[in-house]
C-alpha cells in the first residue's frame, strides 16, 4: 500500500523534518504514529497525502510513485485517501448532509450517487437523525463523526488521521476509535498520528515511533512507550 525508501524532508527554512525514513504499510494495517511534538509525524502524513514533496527518496502509494507524480494527478490520489483532522475542518454554513455530500461534489459525482451514498454513510457513523443540523449545533464527537463520514464516502483505500481525538474527552475518543476500528475491519488502511497513550496501549496495533525525524521503533501490537 505504502512503501517509503530513504525519505528525507528538509523544509525551505532549513528544518530537517525527516531523515532517511524507510517503511512499508500493508493493506489493512492499522498504524499509530507516536512521538514527541515536532518529531515529524505530521510531515510523514503530509508526504503520503502529497501536500509536501520529499527532498530525497521515493514514496510509492498504491503502486504509484507520488514523488514523480504530476500536479494535475494529485487530486485523483487525494480522492483515494480520506483525511481526518483534530479540528474537524467542516464547513460551518453547510448542514451535516451537505458537508458529507461536498466530498462527492468535489469529486464530481452524479446527484444520483450523492443521494444514494450520503444517507448510507451517515447511517454508518450514526448521524442519520442529525443530517439537517449545522456543525455548530453538534458536540465535538458528533462533528468528528461527520468528518469521518466525509473521509470514507469516496471509498478510500486508506484514512490518515492527524490526532483525531485531540479535542475530545476520553469517552467520546473511544467512540471515535471504535468507529475507526470498524472501518479498518472493512479493509481500509488507517494511519493515525496520536498522543493518546490509553488508546494506543488499549488497542494493541502496529506502532511506529518517530523522534527527531527518524523512525526509532516499529512494532506489531506495540504500546505508546512514552509517559503521557
Amino acid at each position, binding site marked *: 500500500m505504502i512503501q517509503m525508501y530513504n525519505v528525507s524532508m528538509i523544509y525551505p527554512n532549513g528544518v530537517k523534518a525527516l531523515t532517511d525514513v524507510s517503511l512499508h504499510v500493508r493493506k489493512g494495517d492499522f498504524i499509530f504514529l507516536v512521538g514527541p511534538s515536532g518529531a515529524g509525524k505530521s510531515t510523514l502524513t503530509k508526504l503520503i*497525502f502529497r*501536500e509536501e514533496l520529499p527532498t530525497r527518496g521515493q514514496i510509492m502509494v498504491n503502486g504509484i510513485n507520488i514523488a514523480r507524480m504530476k*500536479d*494535475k494527478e494529485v*487530486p*485523483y*490520489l*487525494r*480522492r483515494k485517501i480520506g*483525511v481526518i483532522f483534530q479540528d474537524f*475542518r467542516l*464547513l460551518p454554513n453547510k448542514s451535516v448532509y451537505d458537508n458529507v455530500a*461536498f*466530498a462527492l*461534489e*468535489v*469529486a*464530481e459525482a*452524479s*446527484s444520483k450517487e450523492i443521494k444514494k451514498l450520503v444517507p448510507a454513510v451517515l447511517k454508518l457513523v450514526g448521524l442519520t437523525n442529525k443530517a439537517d443540523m449545522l456543525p455548530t449545533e453538534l458536540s465535538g464527537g458528533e462533528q468528528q463523526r461527520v468528518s469521518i463520514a*466525509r473521509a470514507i464516502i*469516496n471509498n478510500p483505500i486508506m484514512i490518515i488521521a492527524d490526532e483525531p481525538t485531540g479535542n475530545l474527552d476520553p469517552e467520546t475518543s473511544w467512540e471515535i476509535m471504535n468507529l475507526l476500528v470498524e472501518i479498518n475491519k472493512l479493509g481500509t488502511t488507517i494511519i493515525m498520528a496520536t498522543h493518546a497513550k490509553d488508546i494506543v496501549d488499549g488497542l494493541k496495533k502496529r506502532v511506529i515511533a518517530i523522534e527527531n525525524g527518524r523512525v526509532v521503533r516499529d512494532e506489531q501490537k506495540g504500546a505508546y512507550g512514552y509517559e503521557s
Partner: protein
Amino acid sequence: MKVRTVGYYFQEALTSLRRNGLMALASVGTVAVALLILGGALLTVLNANNIMKSVENELLISVYLQEGVDETAIGDLEQQINDTPGVAKSRFISKEESLEKLRQQFGETKGSLEFSRNPLPDSFEVNAEKSNLVKGIADKIRGLSGVEKVNYPAEVVQKLSTLVEWVRLIGAVIIILLALAAVFLISTTIRLTVFARRREIGIMKFLGATNWFIRWPFVLEGVFLGLAGALVSGLILYFVNFYIVEAVKQFPFMRVQTDMKDVYIILGSLLGGGIFIGAIGSVISVRKFLQV
C-alpha cells in the same frame, strides 16, 4: 464537465457576489464607466464617419478655368492636376456638360435656362485620396496657370477629421486607464472572495478537488461583474444615442444615419469587452491568491 458541476460553479459565483455586495457594485460601476466611454467614443467616431462619408462627394475639389483656355492648355492642366500628389482622380467637365447637368437638375423649368451664350466655365472635378490632403491639393491647383477659382468644403471636413482623430486618441487613453482600474477592482473583489473562502478552499484541496474545480467559481464571478458593467453601459448608450440621433435629425442638412447594424456591433463589443475585463481581473487574482 458535468451539468451538475457547472450548476455548482454558477451557484457559488452568485452566492459570493451577494456576499461582496458593495465591492461588486464598485467593480460593476467602474466597468460600466470604462465601457460607457469606449462605447461613446466608438459611437462618436461612427457618427462622424457617417457624416464625413456623406460630405465626401462634396469633398470634391471644383476647379474652374479661366475663359478662353484652349484645348492643349486644358490637356496640360489635366496632366498637371493628375500629377499633383494626393489626387485620386480628376474629370474634365466642359461648359456644355455643366449646362446639361444644370438643366437636368432644374428639369421642369427648362425654359428659364435658355441662354444665347453659355455662362458656365469649363471645370475639373478633382477627387483627393484623403480628406486631410484636400487643402494642400487645392492650394497647389490654385497656383496653376489658367485656373480661375478653386472651391472645396474645407472647414467642415478638416474640423471633422481633427475631431475624429482627437476622439480616437483621448478615447483610447481614457479607455485603457479605466479598463486597468476595472481590472484592478475586479481582481480586488475576487481576492476578497478568495480570502473569505480560504478555509473552504483548503478543505476542497484535501478532498481532492481539481484546481479548475476550485478556480471556476471565481473566474465566473469576475465574468459576471464585467458582464453586468457592460449591460449597464450598453443600456445607457443605447438610449443616449437614440435621443441624440433623433435630435440631430431635426436639422435637415445633418444626414445622420446610424445604421442599426453598427450599433449592434458596438453593443456586442461592449459585452465582449466587459467579459474580457472580468475574466482578466479574476484570472489575475486566482493566479496570485489562490495557490491551489
